[in-house]
């Protein structure tokens, strides 16, 4: 279990840290629980063709950094429209 920095206001039961559980199954599958925005790139690195993860990362980046941040994380031009969820 990792202790990730709380992405919002630090008011969860455990103080300013959010427990993030990552399980690796016997078949090699990786399961994230309570994954934070900052950890989405790690999940995407494990599954780089996952379109759903790409859209989640774009949504996260748009919230945290604005559209430029979203595009930077996706390797797109700064002014491209981020792939926000519909």
């Amino acid at each position, binding site marked *: 279990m990792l202790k990730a920095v709380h992405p919002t206001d630090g008011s*969860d*039961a455990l103080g300013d840290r959010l427990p993030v559980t990552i399980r690796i199954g016997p078949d090699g599958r990786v399961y994230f629980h309570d994954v*934070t925005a900052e950890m989405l790139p790690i999940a995407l690195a494990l599954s780089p063709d996952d379109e759903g993860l790409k859209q989640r990362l774009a949504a996260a980046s748009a919230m945290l950094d604005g559209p430029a941040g979203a595009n930077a994380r996706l390797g797109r031009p700064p002014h491209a429209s981020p792939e926000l*969820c*519909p």
Partner: protein
Amino acid sequence: MLRACTFCERRCGVDRVAGNAAPCRLDDQTWCFKRHVSFAEELELLPSYMVYLGGCNFRCRFCVQAPTCFAPRIGTRVEAGQAARDFERLVGTGARTINLLGGEPSLHLHTILEIAAEAAEPLPLVLNSNMYMTPEVIALLNGVVGLYLADFKFGSDVCAASIAGVDRYVEVVTRNLLLAGAQAPLLVRHLVMPGHIECCLLPVAEWMAAHLPDVPFTLNTGYVPAWRAAASSDLSRTLTQDERDRAEAIVARLGLRRAA
């Protein structure tokens, strides 16, 4: 209703205002044991501010939030006005939905109604529920909840009783899905459990196809044996690839509308 609780179909009648703990262990207080912004929900909900309210009327052996979610007072006590401001702040910073979960959030109906009343503007509230509430609760949530995110966990009362400790599961939940879906947008999830495709997924999917074919359906094949499932002989493993394939085939054959 809190004086003789009928929030869920256990209808225990406990006076929660008097401080008597119901079978769910809750009195009239609401506590939040965790909250964070999630990007793991269905895309249409993102970013989603997850607010975990303590206390549950189920005891699912595989619960990934257990045992913390069963405790009535872990974390911070929810005060309606303060929560409304908190939710408004998150919406202001880009959260598309406020996702109330737990535990079982419908056990905190009184607090949810107070928060909604305290908010200056309607909040984009999502009720992520096991759908074991009474029809009275659904009626009171009319106009308050913007979307029901329903966990349709079991296709058989035998499995529901064995795994979650609840009775009349199928009757109650199917009734409530129809009531909730007539009142607000609905999204239904099913977590596929190992060895429970024919008894649970299949009847769930067939019921959805027959009664709510246009409702988005999320098939979750990411089961992990959390909490007591790890020590249960029947639930102590992840799904096999064959089970994943069969689950996907059932949903595809029945033509369910998949959520993104």
